[in-house]
């Protein structure tokens, strides 16, 4: 009997702790967004974060996009050639990238590169009392430290996803046209004709903005809420990557269903 009681007590504790954490996360989100005027007052804070979060991720995203595009070109060519439809390679590569792979893979890479770095940075600032120090200097650490990073992530993600797709299309072209002999003009003209601005590109951009919000939010919250020890920080960083990956893939399904479902 006691074992069963203990089980339910523990279960209840865990549920309450999870609800509390969710509540803290949402409160932090509201506070970060409410601090938007801080960026208007000091745009340099945002520009600095755009550099750290966005610019420093460009090489990783571009190279990854190029390789993914090359694989798409190769796989697409072999599949399409079975039906004599190699001419549609450009459309297939571009649609896959712009609708799905661009936003999703960029967000997964973003969570691993920028997200984990944000969690570690904020967690260390907390552990070394830098955030408390700001509070005691009458500076709000959420507005001063977290808000610029939040918006830095939101602005960076769609731009990075666009770069990913662009390099992916080039990678597909390199393999399809350069190596496998697909006609250059057909590759581009079919893509131009079939890829729809609203249906494909805008929907991809919406996805990447949503992923940008979620990934940056998770990363900042995990850092801000971390236990200020080396173990706590290590766990928080891991949680950032794992939770971000789940959130990206889950949200991708929901968004895809909403955008392309009948």
């Amino acid at each position, binding site marked *: 009997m006691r074992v069963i009681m203990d089980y339910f007590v523990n279960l209840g504790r865990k549920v309450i702790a999870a609800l509390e954490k969710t509540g803290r996360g949402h409160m932090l989100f509201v506070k970060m967004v409410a601090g938007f005027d801080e960026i208007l007052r000091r745009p340099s804070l945002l520009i600095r974060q755009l550099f750290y979060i966005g610019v420093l991720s460009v090489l990783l995203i571009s190279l990854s996009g190029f390789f993914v595009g090359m694989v798409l070109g190769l796989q697409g060519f072999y599949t399409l050639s079975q039906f004599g439809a190699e001419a549609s390679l450009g459309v297939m590569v571009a649609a896959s990238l712009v609708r799905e792979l661009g936003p999703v893979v960029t967000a997964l890479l973003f969570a691993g590169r920028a997200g984990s770095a944000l969690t570690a940075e904020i967690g260390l600032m907390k552990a*070394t009392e830098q955030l408390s120090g700001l509070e005691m*200097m009458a500076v*709000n650490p959420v507005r001063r430290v977290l808000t610029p990073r939040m918006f830095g992530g939101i602005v960076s993600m769609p731009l990075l996803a666009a770069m990913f797709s662009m390099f992916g299309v080039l990678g597909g072209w390199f393999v399809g046209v350069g190596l496998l002999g697909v006609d250059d003009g057909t590759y581009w003209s079919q893509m131009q004709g079939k890829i729809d601005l609203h249906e494909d590109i805008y929907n991809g951009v919406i996805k990447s903005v949503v992923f940008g919000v979620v990934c940056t939010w998770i990363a900042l919250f995990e850092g801000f809420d971390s236990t200020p020890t080396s173990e706590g920080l290590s766990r928080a960083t891991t949680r950032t990557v794992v939770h971000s990956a789940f959130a990206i893939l889950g949200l991708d399904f929901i968004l895809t269903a909403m955008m392309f479902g009948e």
Partner: protein
Amino acid sequence: MSVQDETPLVKIRNLHFSRGNKVIFDGVDMDIPRRKVTAIMGPSGTGKTTLLKLIGGQLRPEQGTVEVDGEDIHSLNTKALYKLRMRMGMLFQSGALLTDISVFENVAYPLREHTDLSSSMLRKLVLMKLEAVGLRGARDMMPSELSGGMARRVALARAIALDPMMIMYDEPFTGQDPISMGVLVKLIRSLNDAAHISSIVVSHDVQETLEIADQVFVISNGKVVESGSPNELAVSKLDWTQQFVKGLPDGPVPFHYPADDLNEDLLNS
């Protein structure tokens, strides 16, 4: 001396605070005077740092009040709280310097945030503050290049940047070599006397703290065990205070953590 000058700077009444099931403060009353060096002493884990965070409004008590300069700090709204904090400096144990900016920029930080000083005026002020702690020559260094003692002195320069009415020192002497410790002891006393700043020093370094303190509060088990001048504490009749001040390994605070009988423990395999 005006009436306000005689009122305590920090007035703590019936303070209760717990972390989980552990009671940290169980009805603490304290009056911290103005323009004096007040030491709050006690063994590790008695909540000395927590007390500073309660005074600074970073934590909320379960019960009781903390008044700073006549204002109940936990009933203030955010704007008023931040306004009051601009008159409070705090020196954290780790220094809490921002690691991505230089020494100069760290000291300039509160001035840039809260004033509209011209850059030449700001530079002069920062250099004066750094001169006061003897580190004007280190202005271009990054926090990672500083020793622990230097980092604390830079943090002290930052804490006095806005000319606060009080500074709270969280374990300023911990982990310092004798020279750094001597420098910090001298700085705390001289800043207090020269700039008429009220100082609250939280520490368990008995000798150094008693050397500069005007008044001492000794806390243990969530309560103020004793208070008075360093001389009064030195001749205290309380066994607990004697053990703490003289650093005796055994006494009212036992050497052994509570455990079962040793023989029984050894025989029970």
